[in-house]
């Protein structure tokens, strides 16, 4: 409570390194090889605490879900208290959740705050037959300096499936948006087009649900609802890159 600044990111230990802790929880509930994967996809929880509570209640009623994926903008102002408040809601999920950083999480001292509370800005993990690549695409927050998305890192991630059968890229700002680094748009789209067994690219930021192939190159882009839209998606993936998406109101 003795807060040195709103940018002060001291939080109790239980609210630090959440990515690592949540991935450990996920690893403790392995999905047998060959099994279909079902997960919840949502984004933009920023300042929507009432909705977060209802979302958790709704998701906890669903059987057969492995995890929840949150596509960034966890906080609205890049503040530690906000990230803690969102975690206080989402830790009540019966399944683990994972996040990718959004532009609002990077405001002010949001970057070290996110790293302290959640963890890496770019990371990947394999669950069952699916590799998830979580990448920071919030180019505008870095003044379009060519570092976000980190293309060398992303390319190397996309090259190897690490034993998985298929892969998914999750980010916050989609390449179709003006907040994506314009110099990296074409290389990003191309890297995704060439990636083996990419099921789809998933992003948030727009606060509205869309599924489409904006570049007509066979790559599907899925945009999540924000918490405020009171909808999430149940995503089912199987085979090399088959998927089904069901949108659920809560």
């Amino acid at each position, binding site marked *: 409570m*003795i*807060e040195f*600044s709103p940018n*002060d990111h001291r939080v109790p230990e239980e609210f630090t390194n959440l990515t690592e802790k949540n991935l450990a929880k996920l690893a403790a509930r392995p999905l047998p090889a060959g099994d279909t994967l079902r997960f919840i996809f949502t984004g933009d929880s920023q300042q929507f605490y*009432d909705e977060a509570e209802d979302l958790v209640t709704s998701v906890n009623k669903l059987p057969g879900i492995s995890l929840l994926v949150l596509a960034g903008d966890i906080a609205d102002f890049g503040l530690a208290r906000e990230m803690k408040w969102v975690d206080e809601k989402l830790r009540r999920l019966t399944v683990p959740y994972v996040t990718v950083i959004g532009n609002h999480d*990077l405001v002010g*001292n949001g970057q070290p705050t996110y790293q302290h509370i959640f963890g890496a800005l770019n990371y990947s993990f394999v669950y069952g037959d699916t590799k998830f690549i979580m990448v920071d695409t919030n180019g505008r927050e870095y*003044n379009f300096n060519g570092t976000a998305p980190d293309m060398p890192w992303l390319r190397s991630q996309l090259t190897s499936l690490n034993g998985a059968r298929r892969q998914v890229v999750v980010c916050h700002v989609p390449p179709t948006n003006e907040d994506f680094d314009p110099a990296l748009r074409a290389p990003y789209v191309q890297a995704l087009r060439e990636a083996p067994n990419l099921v789809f690219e998933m992003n948030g930021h727009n606060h509205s649900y869309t599924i489409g192939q904006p570049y007509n190159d066979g790559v599907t882009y899925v945009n999540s609802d924000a918490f405020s839209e009171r909808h999430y998606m149940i995503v089912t993936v199987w085979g090399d890159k088959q998927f089904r998406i069901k949108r659920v109101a809560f």
Partner: protein
Amino acid sequence: MKKLLLPVLLLASLASQAATPPDTSAAKPAAGTQPERPWYRPKHLALQTGGGLGMVAAGAGYEFSKDRLETDILIGYVPKHYAGSTLSLASLKFMYSPFRLPVGEKFQVVPITVGAYFSYTHGTINDELKGQYSSDYYWFSTDTRYGPLLGSRVTFLAPPVAATGQPRKISVYYELGSNDLYLASYLNNRNGGLGFGQLLTLALGVKADF
């Protein structure tokens, strides 16, 4: 941390020396009259921690309207370890304390101080370069904060300065506060998504009149 604390302590000790001139002062004024205070000379010094205004915040303040109204100007410091970058904060506090209850001869209790603050933070990592965003991309300011305060204090009345008859006092205080962003988050969740206690910050401090 040590780098900053030292000058602050030095400043405070210098100021306290200045505030207690030796009793051998030649021009001893008649009892009850006080030498003219220059208008700009602060009435008190303050040192506090927390309240969103610094790990350490030090400054000075003025009192008006029979000391019921106060305004403090504080410079605060947050080490990089706690915020990701070294922050310096400039803050302005306005406070109103309607009652002062004597407790014995040497103490006073100020049960309620209400107020507001305004602070500017220097040193944040990503705080809007020119042209980074279109106007109103973010509706809030990264570095400018304001919020309400509510606190209490206990004052120790020290014997007056012998040379001048100037009263002296030292107060310890606490303040509960919040800021515009926490309050906005609360107001946008009217179904109990956030508890009021989750918005609060605590400051502890000491003030010395001189």
